[in-house]
């Protein structure tokens, strides 16, 4: 009986699902976030900026709390907080003797603390707080999608126009400086893009899980490729396939969508790692035979 119900659900849903606004929006969100996070996340992973990204993510919770308290869109508060914390971490580690990871630790917890205090002070119950913590790709609004589209276009434009400058500065900052490249300017622009990508994907993946979109597909791509451009394209593909698969699985098994998507990402990563090690062994055997 149960079996039967499941299969009927299977038969009509793919098309039926697409007729639901919420599901179309979720797919669009998955597409846009795969592109933006594919690009920005590859940059983050290449430059070992995962920890600072985690710091920015959690610091932005302070902005969400203040947004609630003042009765405005929490995302606006989060944008301000994420930019301030991103630049704050950079400035603190460059201009003072505070080390970068220590500055991240401080702003990470400060943001969370402020968020909790302001939500506590806000009269009434904060209904979609869980959405900000864990994300909800199924409740993404049209406004969210427009903002994400704008960021996707901005990111694609910036990376395609300045790809080599970004690559060269990221690889060897000091060498780029000796060539009079605008290292600081680029670092700050890219940091701002990282902060914006994080904030706009808090709606999709939540504060706790957003880092997965920025690191897991990219690290998976990095198993096969070690060229930034290829990592970008492959991680976009992995991210898109993983998101769609995750969405469908979560729908049929009635599981939380964000967590399911991440589980699929990690599954892809493990699979890729296994495939790669088999490839390496086979390749070695072949070249030993050829010698």
């Amino acid at each position, binding site marked *: 009986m149960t079996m039967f119900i499941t299969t009927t659900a299977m038969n009509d849903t793919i098309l039926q699902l697409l007729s639901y606004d919420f599901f179309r929006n979720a797919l669009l969100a998955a597409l846009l976030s795969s592109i933006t996070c594919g690009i920005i996340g590859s940059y983050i992973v290449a430059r070992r900026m995962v920890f600072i990204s985690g710091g920015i993510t959690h610091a932005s919770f302070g902005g969400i709390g203040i947004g609630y308290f003042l009765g405005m869109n929490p995302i606006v508060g989060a944008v301000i907080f994420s930019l301030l914390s991103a630049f704050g971490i950079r400035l603190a580690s460059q201009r003072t003797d505070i080390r970068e990871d220590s500055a991240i630790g401080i702003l990470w917890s400060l943001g969370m603390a402020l968020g909790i205090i302001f939500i506590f002070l806000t009269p009434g119950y904060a209904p979609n707080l869980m959405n900000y913590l864990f994300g909800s790709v199924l409740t993404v609004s049209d406004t969210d999608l427009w903002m994400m589209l704008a960021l996707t276009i901005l990111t694609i434009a910036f990376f395609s126009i300045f790809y*080599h*400058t970004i690559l*060269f500065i990221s*690889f060897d900052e000091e*060498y780029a400086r*000796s060539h009079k490249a605008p290292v600081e300017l680029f670092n700050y622009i890219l940091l701002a893009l990282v902060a914006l990508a994080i904030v706009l994907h808090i709606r999709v993946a939540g504060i706790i899980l957003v880092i997965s979109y920025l690191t897991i597909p990219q690290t998976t791509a*990095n198993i096969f490729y070690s*060229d*930034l451009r290829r990592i970008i394209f492959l991680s976009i593909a992995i991210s898109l396939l993983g998101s769609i698969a995750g969405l469908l699985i979560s729908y049929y098994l009635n599981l939380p969508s964000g967590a399911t998507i991440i589980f699929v990402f990690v599954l892809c990563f493990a699979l890729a790692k296994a495939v790669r090690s088999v490839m390496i062994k086979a390749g070695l055997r072949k070249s030993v035979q050829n010698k």
Partner: protein
Amino acid sequence: MTKLLQLTNVSAGYNDMVVLRDVNLEINDHDFIGVIGPNGGGKTTLIKIMLGLLKPARGSVTRFGEASGSSFIGYLPQVTQVDKKFPITVLDIVLSGLMSSRGKFYRYSRHDNETAHQLLAQMGIGGLAHRTSRELSGGQLQRVFICRALISNPKLLILDEPNTFVDNRFESDLYERLIELNKKMAILIVSHDVGTISYYVKTIACVNEYLHYHRSNIITEQQLADYNCPLQIITHGDVPHTVLQKHEHDHVHNHDSHE
């Protein structure tokens, strides 16, 4: 003889610590200068000043004839400065040597690509162009960096400890190539392996807070002591050395000029 770079009464340091004091140095085309000195003596700071990475606290740095499109200085940093696992191809690393001459909207031409391939082939690593940084050994990466320094046809080539990762065979190879390059460009090479570089360089600069310019490639222990330049002289491999006219031990020679 064309003047390329001049440091006049340069003092420099970090925070409140002075690393270089009253340094005067003039670099002309066809110069081949070996910079020696103890660790922490200011060799790297001197390079940073020349590259414009560090502003002198006092004194002036003048570059002559920089304006023309091609980049003025080719720079080989220490390999340890970069993240070897960074996702970048060998070809891109070499092309990054054209950064200042191609601008921020950097697009490289087929001609740039060919130049990069030629340089890699000359360095004996032509087959590695499409490999990535993480697949290279330290010595291979060093050669890629040399190609990066040369691709812009610089007037002055600055090398910071080029013999760190390079094997003995490539080391003498490298120095022979430098002599060849020296016909086209001035070279300044930093090393604590005085014994090796002195065979190839024309002049020696001893840096230990102050800079003493020695207009010969032969330097005696007494002179090193006079320059307040305590050094551990290590020579190894097949590379010939002419430094230290009276040295009894061939391999490790501890030299300490402190009284």
